[in-house]
């Protein structure tokens, strides 16, 4: 199969090179399987050729030669299908790579600096006030960005090819005292087609919305309270139960401020951060109640959800582990006092068995202020809201993206080749690191992508989302999209500027 496709590719390449047309060559690359993770980049004294994990079969033989046919290098891939070799004194713009006995494929030799710069371009601008989450979804051969606009109480749908925008405004809800309560939507999870679930922190609810028809399909809300085994002392007196009386302690309360959201085949899992009131001044700190996870059964969304009180405060995100558990990432309460931003409570991860609705494991992360977690084949990496750092919670290895005293990584996502992408809010950088060995900026991602101007007026690179499918196989063009929270724009990144033939 591979050989046939490669042959077609070579013939087409020869034909089209002669005709001077390169666009169709790129189209033809779609047919090549696996090679989208192979790269050839120029170095100071030659060329580095390599492939990410899964780029070639395990222990495959790789033969590298010039276009004229002169053999330059021969090596074997490792057990994961990864390989890398340096070829000195080679300056040609193209190089030929042959995997096992397949037909050789011609690769462009990229200049890394140029390719990294060219990979990034603005994709959409003015995506609303306080955008907080991004999904990239393909439906009916159209590519959309779904954006949660917390400041606008809306979920937007932007056609990334035409720039056309539409969306749904979540109506205000009337409070007990006649006040209008904005929905304050926060996170998104993709259901099917253009259907999404969105947490509405202001309404303590989760909305199920069809962005194609702009219909509200349902609301996940429960009136049941959580009852703690003992009183929880509030940070300051506050009327948590809205009965007009200030409380200093609570034992039973309604979960507040849904934020993190995970959709599995059977469950809708929602993390309630417990946020009640912001800090007013030095003497009046922010008020939180304990974080809670609610688990709805997707087959019966009208049934009462299971409720789990978390051992750590302020859950940020819920993701699925490689063995099917829900990982709840709790940052702890972040407070700024006397000009210093830090944690008032410990941070940690909680692993929940969704079938039994029980906590199966916790990992204490102390003052790490965890924000986002990715589990790739058991390698669990968590990012920090207060530092540009990522830690492997099993090995305690720490990757430092920069030395800023305060920086935030709001989202980690998995990339092909067991890589992880992480955004630095303060510097507008998109970093890539290797989940297996913790190497930052692994070849060919020799430097982070600049997804914004950086300090002093940075865009606030916040959420990174990946286009579904395989870049270079299922589609051409950008494969990563970065939502800038401050600039309200989306940057696109085409990693194929560094990878592939």
């Amino acid at each position, binding site marked *: 199969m591979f050989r046939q496709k490669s042959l077609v590719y070579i013939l087409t390449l020869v034909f089209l090179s002669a005709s001077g047309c390169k666009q169709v060559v790129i189209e033809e690359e779609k047919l090549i399987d696996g090679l989208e993770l192979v790269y050839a980049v120029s170095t100071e004294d030659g060329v580095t050729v390599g492939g990410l994990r899964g780029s070639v079969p395990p222990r495959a033989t790789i033969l590298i030669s010039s276009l004229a046919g002169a053999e330059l290098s021969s090596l074997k891939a490792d057990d994961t299908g990864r390989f890398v070799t340096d070829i000195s004194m080679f300056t040609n713009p193209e190089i030929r790579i042959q995997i096992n006995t397949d037909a050789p494929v011609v690769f462009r030799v990229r200049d890394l600096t140029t390719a990294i710069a060219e990979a990034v371009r603005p994709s959409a601008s003015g995506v609303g006030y306080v955008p907080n989450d991004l999904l990239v979804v393909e439906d009916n051969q159209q590519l959309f960005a779904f954006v949660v606009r917390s400041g606008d109480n809306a979920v937007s749908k932007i056609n990334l090819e035409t720039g056309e925008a539409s969306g749904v405004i979540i109506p205000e809800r009337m409070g007990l005292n006649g006040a209008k309560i904005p929905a304050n939507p926060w996170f998104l999870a993709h259901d099917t087609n253009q259907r999404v679930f969105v947490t509405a922190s202001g309404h303590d609810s989760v909305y199920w919305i069809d962005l194609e028809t702009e219909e509200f399909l349902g609301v996940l809300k429960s009136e049941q309270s959580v009852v703690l085994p003992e009183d929880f002392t509030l940070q300051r007196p506050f009327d948590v139960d809205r009965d007009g009386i200030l409380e200093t302690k609570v034992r039973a309360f309604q979960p507040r401020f849904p934020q993190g959201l995970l959709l599995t085949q059977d469950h809708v899992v929602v993390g309630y951060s417990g946020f009640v009131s912001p800090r007013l001044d030095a003497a009046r700190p922010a008020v939180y109640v304990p974080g809670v996870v609610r688990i709805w059964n997707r087959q019966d969304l009208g049934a009462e959800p299971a409720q789990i009180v978390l051992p750590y405060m302020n859950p940020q995100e819920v993701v699925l582990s490689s063995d099917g558990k829900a990982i709840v990432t709790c940052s702890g309460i972040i407070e*700024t006092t006397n000009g210093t931003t830090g944690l008032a409570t410990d941070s940690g991860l909680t692993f929940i068995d969704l079938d039994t609705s029980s906590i199966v494991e916790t990992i204490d992360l102390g003052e790490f202020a965890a924000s986002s977690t990715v589990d790739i084949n058991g390698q669990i990496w968590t990012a920090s809201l207060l530092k540009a750092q990522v830690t492997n919670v099993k090995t305690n290895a720490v990757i430092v993206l920069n030395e*800023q005293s305060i920086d935030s990584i709001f989202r980690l996502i998995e990339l092909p080749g067991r890589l992880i992408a992480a955004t630095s809010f303060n510097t507008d950088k998109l970093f890539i690191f290797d989940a297996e060995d913790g190497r930052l900026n692994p070849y060919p991602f020799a430097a982070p992508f600049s997804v914004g101007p950086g300090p002093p007026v940075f865009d606030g690179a916040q959420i990174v989302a990946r286009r579904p499918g395989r870049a270079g196989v299922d589609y051409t063009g950008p494969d990563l999209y970065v939502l800038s929270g401050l600039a309200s724009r989306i940057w696109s990144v085409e990693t194929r500027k560094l990878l592939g033939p």
Partner: protein
Amino acid sequence: MKFGDFILRCFMKGMFRIFACITLYACVVPRALGQTHSSTSATDKIEIDGKSIVESFDRLESSTFFSNDEIRREDVQGRSLADLLERVAGTRATNFGGPLLSKAIQIRGGSAAQTEVIIAGVPQRTPFAMGIDLSLLTLNHIEEIKVVRGGTTLGSAMGGAVYASSRTTDSVPGASFTIRYGSLDRTDLEAIVRAGNLVVSTAYRRSLGNFEFDSKLSGLPTQRKIRSNNDAQTGQLLMSGQHKFLGGIFGHNLTVGIRESGVAGFETQPTEFTRDFRGQTQLRTFWKNDKTRLSSFFHGMLIDYSKSDTGEKLSETMFHSYGLDGSTRVQVGSHTITPEVFISRISSDSTEHGIRARVESWMKLQDEFTFINVDWLAQIKTYWDSDFGFQLQPSMGGTLYLSDTWLWRSSLGRAFRAPTLDELYHPTQNGYSGNPSLQPESSWEIETGLRWLWARNAQVDFVGYFRQMDDLILALNRNAFEIRPENTDEASITGVEIESSYGLPTKFVELALFASAAFMWTRSEVTGEPLPTRPTLSGYFEARLKAPQAALNAFELYSSWRGLSSTTTNLQGTLEMPSYHRVDAGATYEIFPGAMFSLSVTNILDDKGLMTVNKLPLPGRQFLASLRVSDLAQP
């Protein structure tokens, strides 16, 4: 809280009743206090550099002047000071929504904080960088206004300045009272009386303020919503008097303004229960003769935010400034030299930024002379304050009559603005903090202009300018948790302003046209984008038809258009603020001598999508009917 603060607070809290009583009393017995009148020969009109603004065409800055007649005409129609100032080329009012809510003014691309406001000779100060709230002033208390565009000579006015003088016995009839009623349940009561050398004016206004508006968010369907918690009631009091004393004029002026209102919040994030109580009072005394002026002033301000549902106090700020200033004019040969000194202490006791104080002073030496047929004015000003030390502000300008109908003017100067106390010392709360290492922002500005008197009752002013700003103070994110003001790189503003007036008297009707337009290009070097909330194009056009002087009963019809091009609301230039167009109209009719009826319609096209800075919605069509009855005795 200090005893003085306590007294001031009690005074202001009880003032609404006082205003209502005084206003009603004055309405019922308008002549009671106005029986005697003796006008002083020299009144306290606007003075700049020791000169009446009518005396000279400015050499150092472009300006627009509003006479007492113009202000009275606008006043009877119920317009606010900010409404009036929006006519000036390149100005923009930051309107917080309702007819009685906060309004500040931006001039020539400056921020509201870069606009200096001087009321009756008292520089208005605030510890916050939101600009001076003009809605605490009423046009009924103002006699003349001069708007200076550009900041070449004024201390903290990098954008421009507004000078307003208080009513004097010259312009006040024996007594006058006004009642208004209109949309948004607006009710006004105003009274002004002249008693001997004293003018007493008081006003009480209220509005429920709630209105429908269209929420237009980019890429989302338009939603009809209701703006609530937008009510306000205000009270104002003016007592002003002048007496002959020691060969000159001794004057005193007391102004009080208070407001209790809702804080409606942003369009999509309304705040239903936040209330704002604020008040300010100022007292100025002065003595002057033809050459010398000495004055003292006190300015106090209270700003108090709370929650009406829980009674929770959100913040409280008591702010004072007081000081002395004086100037004299000396003739040395062909040079007219004006030395001037100013010293002031400002202090603030706030839950926002603690107890803070600053002393500021300046000395200015000004020389007027003629050289190569050009009338020159050179000025050197040395500013000092206890936080930032010395700042030097040189400036120079000249005027030349090219012909009987053409006048040329050019000027160059430096301006700066010291950071406010809150910009420096605000603690980190809710994601915002002050920056103690902040430095003053400064600018150099050069401008040149032509005035063309192209016909009788017709005049056109053209001005082109360029401003280079350094260390511009912008609120920037330090990280995801904290925004604070920072000195950024350079920014520049290049612009052209045109103001034109044309009067056409005929036998049956008099036509008066006024138009202003400003083109402005801004650029921040740090972002490479235009500065936010600065529309490239702004314009105002007004047409008035009125009965000629000889007519038995005066009447006037007017219509105006106000337009602003689209701009952006964030530094990155990605969030668009749509363009703004508003058409107003109205009529005034003198029912009988001394009784004037006025009907005005604001936003006559009922555009419910109008927004102001930072997307705060504005009301649709509003009607306001006014009746003013004045004493027949003319001053």
